[in-house]
């Protein structure tokens, strides 16, 4: 992303909307400026700000006049008055930033659509997490801190050493140069993203072990981690297995995403699945 200096009037609205606090008014240039190392190409500024198309010279004149009189002009806070934001063409490896930060774009850089996988959201049709298994989503950088891949790699390598395998369709997995060791390709290690998720699945007996590994790595990295734990309920819709483990570890369970089991595999696809079973 870039801000066109010919258009920017330094109103400052964009400095507040950047989730990474990467935009500031340069005191010499007197224009909004992006710290490119901190910018994660999330496009919140470009997509989220409404745009007016006012004449920049006129706006600057009015603003300077008001400033001289110590009058505060109070426009809407979610507007760029001169439509000064201009997306620039992103090259590798910077394109990875956008893939993990702008929720509206598919993962072109990774070949995986979406920013994570469907985890338990479609478990009723995918059967991904079965009874006796636990699916983890280990998310780095959110909310509003960001993460670099070298931090994520510390976690992935630790988990790999413990013999944990990663979800194949996950975008971070697709950027690993060696999935067996959890090693992420070297040319993106310093790239910063809004958030990235490692996804793993283990037998329920390993729940505590994995959480303790996560706790250890959290101390070695400089970002925040949001942990999600998914499991299959029993035939009565109860989970009397995983929740007690989490509570024993000190977690107070407040919020959850509950799959209510209304998904149904389409008839045609069921037939295809049946054929595949026959061939197998």
């Amino acid at each position, binding site marked *: 992303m870039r801000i066109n200096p010919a258009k920017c009037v330094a109103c400052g609205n964009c400095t*507040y*909307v950047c*989730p990474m*606090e990467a935009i500031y008014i340069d005191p010499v240039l007197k224009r909004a400026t992006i710290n490119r190392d901190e910018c994660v190409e999330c496009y*919140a500024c470009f*997509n*989220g700000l*409404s*745009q*007016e*198309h006012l004449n920049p010279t006129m706006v600057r004149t009015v603003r300077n006049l008001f400033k001289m009189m110590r009058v505060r002009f109070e426009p*809407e*806070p979610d*507007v760029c008055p001169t439509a000064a934001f201009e997306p620039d063409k992103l090259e590798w490896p910077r394109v990875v930033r956008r893939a993990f930060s702008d*929720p*509206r774009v598919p993962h072109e850089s990774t070949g995986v659509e979406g*920013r994570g996988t*469907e985890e*338990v*959201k479609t478990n*009723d*049709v995918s059967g991904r*997490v079965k009874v006796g298994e636990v699916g983890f*989503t280990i*998310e780095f950088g959110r*909310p*509003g*801190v960001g993460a670099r891949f070298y931090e994520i790699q510390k976690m992935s390598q630790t988990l790999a050493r413990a013999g944990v395998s990663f979800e194949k369709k996950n975008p971070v997995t697709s950027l690993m140069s060696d999935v067996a060791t959890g090693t992420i390709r070297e040319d993106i290690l310093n790239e910063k993203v809004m958030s990235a998720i490692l996804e793993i699945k283990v037998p329920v007996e390993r729940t505590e072990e994995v959480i303790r590994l*996560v706790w250890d790595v*959290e101390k070695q*990295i400089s*970002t*925040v*981690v*949001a942990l*999600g*734990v*998914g*499991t*299959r*309920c029993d035939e*009565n*819709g*109860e*989970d009397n297995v995983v*929740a007690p483990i989490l509570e024993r570890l000190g*977690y*107070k369970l*407040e*919020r*959850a*995403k*509950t799959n*209510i*089991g*209304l*998904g149904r*595999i*389409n008839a*045609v696809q069921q037939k295809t699945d049946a054929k595949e079973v026959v061939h197998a």
Partner: protein
Amino acid sequence: MTNTLHRFGDAESFRDDYVVFAIASKGKNDQDALPKLRRFLEIAREYKPVNLGDARHGGALRPSKEMNPMSHWQRDMTPDFDAVIAGLDHPTTCAAVFDDRVKAEDFVKRIREEDLGLSVNISTSIDGAEQCCHYAGIPRHSVGYSLGFEGHTEKLPNDRVMMLSTMCGHGMVSHQLARKMIDWVKEGRRTPAEAVTYMARFCSCGVFNPARAKRVLESVIHQNGQPLTQLQAQSQTNADE
């Protein structure tokens, strides 16, 4: 994606926050997914949601690329649910946000009866989702718990800011904007209802809850030495009596 899961707050703070979303899994139940997702949104509209959205186009309040300068004085702040439904052009995650348990329960029951075949999830407090399932006569299939935020949490802002900014799980509502809106409400420069719309426009999938956000912002206002929320609760109790 975990964009509705990790909202900041305790279970009680989710009393007016029920996100119900539908999703089709590629190669599993995505046949005719588009009309089914549209139907999901149309039904949701009947139950008076506070937001509707799809993951490609956003929610019922959206930014404008051609804003009229006069809008600074007469900006339309009405959520446009019709635009969300009409704009759905690709199978993607569709969400409806309710600020009331009864509305959410009725909607979930209706969705069960419609039998769309889509995967449907409820993101709220664990008890809230269980009550919805119980009312609709559905046993929970799977559950994904949020264990909250860990690691270097000293980098995170205060509770009110977190409650606002994490309502866009994709991180599009910045901490700074949330903080600014709290300040503006405190200073009387904007009403809570106005401040909420500025934040909601940044949410790119429509799961931001304007009703809960308004409640959070109202908690910073005091009248005659009492929090506005407390006065509203008293007035509601008096009306009920």
